[in-house]
């Protein structure tokens, strides 16, 4: 079963991390991706630009309104994700615990969500078209 690991972190307010610190984080992510790829369970991972770059669409009085910012102004914001194919939740928890940044004290957290398989279409007009993008 595929799980999405949603990485939330408080966006940096003070000085940016040192070069070594940034390097250490990147290396840790590469290591995790390599390890999961080798096991054949890696299905994707990408970082996101900060929430200050986010745009949110909302329906108001039947009209679409475009707004600046993320959907909720919370201290922690979605910063990236992994999709991993695990046998069960404990395996997913094990990988989440290996993520370099977010379990580091108050800096952030990882939300683990099982991915629901796309429902089977009675008559699939373009078979596999949608599933392919998700399955990678």
């Amino acid at each position, binding site marked *: *079963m595929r799980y999405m690991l949603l990485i939330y972190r408080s966006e940096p307010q003070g000085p940016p991390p040192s070069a070594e610190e940034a390097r250490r984080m990147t290396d840790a992510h590469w290591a995790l991706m390599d390890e999961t790829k080798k096991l054949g369970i890696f299905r994707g991972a990408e970082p996101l630009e900060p929430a200050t770059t986010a745009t949110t669409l909302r329906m108001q009085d039947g009209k679409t309104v475009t707004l600046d910012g993320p959907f909720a102004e919370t201290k922690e914001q979605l910063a990236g994700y992994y999709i991993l194919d695990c*046998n*069960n*939740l404990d395996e997913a928890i094990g990988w989440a615990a290996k993520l370099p940044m977010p379990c580091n004290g108050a800096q952030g957290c990882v939300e683990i969500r*099982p991915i629901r*398989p796309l429902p*089977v279409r009675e008559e699939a007009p373009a078979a596999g078209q949608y599933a392919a993008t998700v399955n990678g």
Partner: protein
Amino acid sequence: MADARTLVESVLREQSGRIIATLIRLSGSFDRAEEAMQEAFTSALIHWPEKGIPQNPGAWITAVAHRKLIDSVRRETTRVEKQDSISYETSIAQSSTPDIDDDLAMQYPDDRLRLIFTCCHPALNLEAQVALTLRTLGGLATPEIARAFLAPETTVAQRLVRAKKKIQTARIPYEIPPPERLAERLTAAMAVIYLIFNEGYSATSGASLIRRDLCREAIRLGRILSQLVPEETEVTGLLALMLLQDSRRETRVNAAGDLMTLEEQDRSRWDRAEIEEGTRLVEAALRRRRVGPYQLQAAIAAVHANASSSDATDWNEIAALYGELAAVSPTPVVAFNRAVAIAMSQGW
């Protein structure tokens, strides 16, 4: 035939925890396991009066329920071949043979332990953990759990549904945690076992104020857990605490059903075997010098249990133990009991 009905009820009460644990392993689903078990008990009510009572009633129920599981999985498989969760359950169900003999339960002594770790998984909230454990392992009905929690029945029912759905959808594993995770999972499991014990000890339902089966179940679970992790002194402490409290079961309430204080109880009717085992266990645990709240409470219970009367109790020792307990678990009740012990030790 009244005999068969009585037997069905007693098997249900005493063995449903073990049976459901096995059925969950076989089916990979709490709901299917419950459904199959209920059907099997219904079959027993029909068959046993006609054809006689089987030699091992628990194994009979398990085998019949397992056949019903396989039938229902087959039906589901033909209906929705491609659905992921169903194929997951199917593969689990088909991985074991349908022929079950009387040794089934003996082959998988860890089923209930798997079940308790799944029920006490930290991905479930504590209320759900407790409700699920009481429902499946304790065999309590939803209204009984509701009364134990002082919560509305619908709330508990929803809690159970949500918890079972999460176990299924997020695939919370049905296994004993690996060594590196065992410690963090133990704390929750111990809290739940002790809660089951207390539900039995100060029962909120049933004919008798003390529901022996729940206390026995909690002690049995505590025993299995302490055998699995003998180096965990708090698990030993918990088992000792339950045994020492249980030793007073006959004297805790009088004929009118009122609670009796320690001073009022007839100490000659305390269960010596349980006192001896509990005392031996807590002494062995304390010698390993990794003290925790369960061991301290057990030690206090042991001092009481080994005193011939209230006056002969070593209140200095009890006051000192409460002092240590207050340091690790500073609650108003502990503070109060400590004050009482200090007063008693000074001959008030």
